């Protein structure tokens, strides 16, 4: 009786014995663990390197066991590296971009989400399509334009460029969140005689705020990491953190421990920010593809 039921079970396609199931489970876990390691280990390695003395960096024996030092994190702020001023530039450019992008994007997103008007679809497509423009194409006109305006090597120029990069994303993301706000909330407020502007400010913005914050974090991240335009427009006054990194390539070779310390400085704020808004962030970063 028992034997026959085992035969019957194992002839069902897809049925696995407990042993097979356990082996499979272990295999899955091993793969996930391998995946986690391939993400975490390189990051950890860079972070460890930031606390190493040069002699420990250049020897594999002291890969994991070494005397930690804060020296690199001090050195990168000193002459000639001056990552302090670069960090300040990065903060100013990224916050300036976000402060301009978010209100502009919210207004446009509201119009695209709630209002009916001519050319709506074409305009929306144009905004979305503009994120496909390769930096390599617009970098020449930008360079020449800002050269003409005497704005090469200024933070304002970088803010303007980054704004044009993040706006399409921000409009799209915020529109998604406004779409999800129940329209009844607005309608009842309008019945009470509230103006559109007040509805937008007092009802839509508060409800969509998590989404707006997510879009702000995303825009901040893109601007913070932006490299190509900062490389071409920057000379010495408007250099940002990612450019600070290539400064550690010297005639004496690459100064890895300083690069790692600089890398830590670039990365840590982004990790904190992204983990802070983690759930929202992933939802809205992937929604566009799924919806």
């Amino acid at each position, binding site marked *: 009786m028992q034997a026959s039921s085992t035969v019957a079970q194992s002839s069902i396609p897809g049925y696995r014995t407990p042993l097979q199931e356990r082996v499979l489970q272990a295999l899955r876990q091993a793969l996930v663990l391998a995946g986690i390691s391939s993400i975490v280990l*390189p990051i950890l390695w860079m972070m460890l390197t930031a606390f190493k003395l040069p002699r420990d960096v250049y020897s594999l024996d002291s890969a994991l066991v070494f005397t930690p030092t804060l020296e690199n994190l001090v050195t990168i702020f000193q002459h000639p590296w001056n990552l302090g001023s670069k960090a300040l530039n990065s903060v100013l450019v990224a916050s300036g971009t976000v402060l301009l992008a978010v209100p502009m994007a919210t207004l446009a997103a509201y119009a695209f989400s709630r209002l009916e008007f001519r050319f709506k679809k074409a305009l929306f497509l144009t905004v*979305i399509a503009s994120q496909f423009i390769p930096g390599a194409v617009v970098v020449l006109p930008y*360079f020449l334009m800002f050269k003409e305006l005497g704005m090469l090597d200024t933070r304002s120029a970088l803010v303007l460029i980054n704004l044009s990069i993040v706006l399409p994303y921000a409009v799209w993301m915020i529109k998604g969140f406004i779409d999800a706000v129940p329209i009844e909330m607005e309608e009842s407020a309008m019945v009470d005689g509230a103006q559109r502007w007040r509805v937008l400010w007092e009802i839509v913005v508060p409800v969509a705020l998590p989404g707006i914050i997510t879009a702000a974090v995303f825009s901040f991240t893109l601007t913070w990491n932006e490299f190509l335009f900062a490389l071409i427009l920057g000379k010495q006054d408007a250099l940002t*953190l990612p450019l600070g990194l290539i400064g550690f390539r010297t005639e004496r070779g690459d100064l890895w421990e300083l690069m790692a310390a600089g890398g830590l400085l670039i990365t840590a704020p982004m990790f904190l920010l992204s983990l802070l808004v983690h759930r929202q962030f992933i939802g809205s970063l992937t929604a566009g593809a799924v919806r």
Partner: protein
Amino acid sequence: MLRRVPLHVWLLTPALAFVAAMALFPLGYSLLLSFRSWKLAQQDTPGQWLGLDNYWNLLSDDTEFLDSVWATLVFVSADVAVTLLLALAAALLLQRETRMNSLARVLLILPFVMSPALIGVSFRFFLNPEFGVGHHLVGWIFPAMADKVWLADTTLAMVAVIAADVWHWAPYMTLVVLGGLASIPKETQEAARIDGASEWVVLRDVTLPQLKPVLGVVLILKTVFALKAFDTIFTLSNGGPGTSTQTLAYFVYQTAFNYYDMGYAAAAAYLLTAALVVCAFFYLRLLFRK
């Protein structure tokens, strides 16, 4: 007077005017530039009108350009294929609710928010033949590789550049595919299982077909970002050794800002744009068909 301006105009003008000024205007300017000769080192204003000469020269006898087209094709196709397969496999693996999987899902966001320039620098560090962990790890697993200097070998340098870009993007794309998997109604998979389909058949005949739109988005988005990739290549291999990892985006940068040949660079940039326009078309169609 002002009252007659409709609301949507007020709402849209700031963003749209800006997009027009900062995206569409440079695009047009670049196009005009691509028909002219302009060596920035010798003259301050655009020089003579050349018509299609820049394009003709690029396509007919500029081996450096043609090499970079080839490098772009290799880079983009390998990068996209590996990212897509990895993201799909990882998402299928991570969709079960276990504690380790939810930790993994949190960690997936980290590479994506890292500076691509930093990723390039870090890979350079890992692949250093003397003290790079990556170099020694690979040499330990495949002894034949132990003596290879990654960034001095044309093939391996390309592998390194692709690996760095995959490391940056595959985790994020995994999140996208996970989102797609979550939106598939569980009933269809259950029904197939009850009908006696094996897991493999469920995946092939039920899950994957429903996942197609999402995989399409991943495919196109990744192609676009691979075509635009610059930072990682700049900091990891500098386009080298020789010009082996010099993709189109990098070629444009070289031509414009090392050789100061603006018109020629603009023409090359426009050929790159052509490829992106095709991607954009398919992407928008996929997105708005639903």
